[in-house]
């Protein structure tokens, strides 16, 4: 940020707005995670959108304003669908009597089998489309690469690491209610379809990217696709894998976006074609980017490998005919990432390129945590995930 200010992209007042909006966004995100009221969850989700809109257009370039406008309209309309779903949910719950607690998740969950299955099926379609827009599910993903590439880099990191996860969390919460009411896996099938589609489309799009931040935002869509797919598959192992994947993806992705921010400062551009020789210019940034990419592509021994492997095993177990698609997608995504990252990190250093002052401790700590999770998951974390899995899917992981 200090760098941005130095080159005249930001003024003091905008920096002030940046910090206050950032805190507002964090408040809304934590509210989504902690509230028991489905209505408040929607309000907080919408609030998070509103808080980040002005952050995306922070640099006031025509591109960033376009990105912010797209983000605003698409997410606003999308999340309106989720409100319609919430209203239907409330409508179904109000028929049981007791209208005071009718939107409290704990009450709804306890009475899930009494809710009208027809109404809840319709409600879930709206909820999935609505929150799915925020997850970045294809074909509702258009805003995501734009907002990520034009906004300030710390924004991209929290959008990828937090906002997308929160939206997925909202979907999973609703799925639990719907599953309880319909006694079928209809919600799961919908999520599997959307997740698989997003995963494959994003993996292919990785090859065509020219902007480094767009590249990694497509990688986010791809990983959110895997998670949605795994949560949709249900069952102990897939749910456990999805939770683990959520954790390691957030850690890795925020590390990558921080490194990418430094990389584009070094090269003075976000265009992939113009970034060369990062390792020669500033070894720490170059290696950070390379190792981050290795981790996100799912190389052992990093945590992403563990979770992707678990998803794959669960797929082979439950839907063997989907496993080749999953493997193919992972392969395509891997190739797409490396084809762009390799020329950026290796190669000779351009003469004009200077090292910048960079604090890479957060990156190293994040990547070390991911490595640790890949080598051995600590018992308390594993227990915690197992409990969540038991709650979500009704069975234990292994």
């Amino acid at each position, binding site marked *: 940020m200090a760098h941005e200010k130095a080159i005249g992209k930001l003024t003091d007042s905008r920096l002030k707005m940046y910090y206050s909006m950032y805190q507002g966004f964090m408040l809304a995100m934590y509210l989504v995670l902690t509230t028991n009221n489905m209505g*408040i969850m929607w309000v907080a989700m919408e609030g998070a959108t509103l808080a980040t809109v002005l952050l995306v257009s922070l640099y006031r370039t025509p*591109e960033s304003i376009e990105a*912010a*406008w797209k983000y605003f309209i698409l997410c606003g309309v999308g999340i309106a669908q989720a409100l319609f779903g919430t209203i239907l949910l409330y409508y179904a719950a*109000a028929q049981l009597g007791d209208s005071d607690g*009718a939107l409290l998740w704990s009450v709804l969950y306890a009475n899930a089998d009494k809710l009208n299955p027809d109404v809840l099926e*319709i409600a879930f379609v709206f909820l999935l489309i609505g929150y799915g827009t925020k997850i970045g599910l294809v074909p509702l993903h258009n805003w995501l690469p734009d907002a990520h590439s034009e906004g300030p880099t710390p924004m991209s990191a929290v959008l990828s690491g937090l906002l997308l996860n929160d939206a997925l969390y909202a979907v999973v919460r609703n799925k639990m209610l719907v599953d309880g009411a319909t006694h079928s896996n209809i919600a799961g099938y919908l999520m599997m379809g959307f997740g698989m589609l997003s995963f494959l489309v994003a993996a292919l799009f990785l090859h065509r990217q*020219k902007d480094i931040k767009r590249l990694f935002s497509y990688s986010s869509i791809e990983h959110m696709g895997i998670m949605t797919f795994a949560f949709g598959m249900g069952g102990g192992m897939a749910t456990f894998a999805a939770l683990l994947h959520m954790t390691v993806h957030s850690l890795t992705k925020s590390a990558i976006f921080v490194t990418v921010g430094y990389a584009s400062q070094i090269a003075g551009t976000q265009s992939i074609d113009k970034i060369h020789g990062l390792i020669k210019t500033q070894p720490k940034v170059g290696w950070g980017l390379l190792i981050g990419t290795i981790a996100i592509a799912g190389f052992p021994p990093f945590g992403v490998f563990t979770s992707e492997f678990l998803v794959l095993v669960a797929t082979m177990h439950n839907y063997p005919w989907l496993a080749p698609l999953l493997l193919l997608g992972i392969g395509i995504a891997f190739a797409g990432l490396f084809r762009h990252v390799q020329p950026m990190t290796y190669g000779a250093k351009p003469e004009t390129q200077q090292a910048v002052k960079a604090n890479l401790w957060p990156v190293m700590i994040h990547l070390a945590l991911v490595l640790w999770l890949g080598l051995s998951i600590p018992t308390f974390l594993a227990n915690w995930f197992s409990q969540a899995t038991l709650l979500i899917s009704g069975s234990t992981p292994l």
Partner: protein
Amino acid sequence: MNIVEQDFYTQIILSMAALVGLTSFLMLGQGRLLRLIFVFALQGLLLTLTTALVAYSLDNPHLYISAVMTLALKVIFIPWMLRREVMQMNMHRDVEALSNKTALMLGGASLTVFSYYVLHPIVQTTSPAMLNALAVSLSVVLLGMLLMISHRQAIAHVVGFMSIENGLFFAAIVATNGMPMVVELGIAFDVLVAAVLFGIFFFHIRSSIDSLDVDKLNRLNEVDK
């Protein structure tokens, strides 16, 4: 279902639903911005009346607060803001040429039929009158989207966005007699913030591309950039 057989309250609610649906169609075919904003304010007024009516007939005081909030936000503040914007941009004489109005109207009509089709399973759990009200509010939501697709002015997009919100609000009022108070306050707050943000955005868009035509926001795309 014969409307004469229903009680008085249901009859009025159904008429209100019909009127709200009608205003959506009016907005859809409207090329003049000022008239578009006027019809939008009218829709807000209908919503206010419906809310007040439900509050009166169910003796539910917190719905009066919702009614007042709707009046203040959607009948007065947002139309006033949009109108001021149109005047400042000197666009009040422009007529937007909508391509193929007939197809647009037919599209709107089929969206309405579609929303009846989607919500039909609900009919087992409730009265046909409720199905009508819910289906109309869903079609208002869908018509708002169609409005955003078919118009090119940013102001028309905002009107479409807010009319989607109107449709949702109508569903909440009629089907469930209003959401819990705290949720409604939250939604109203979000709408207010969104309206203010739209105001800021008009300023930014105008200063960066010198127009409010969203077709000119086309720099970011996937192919040959």
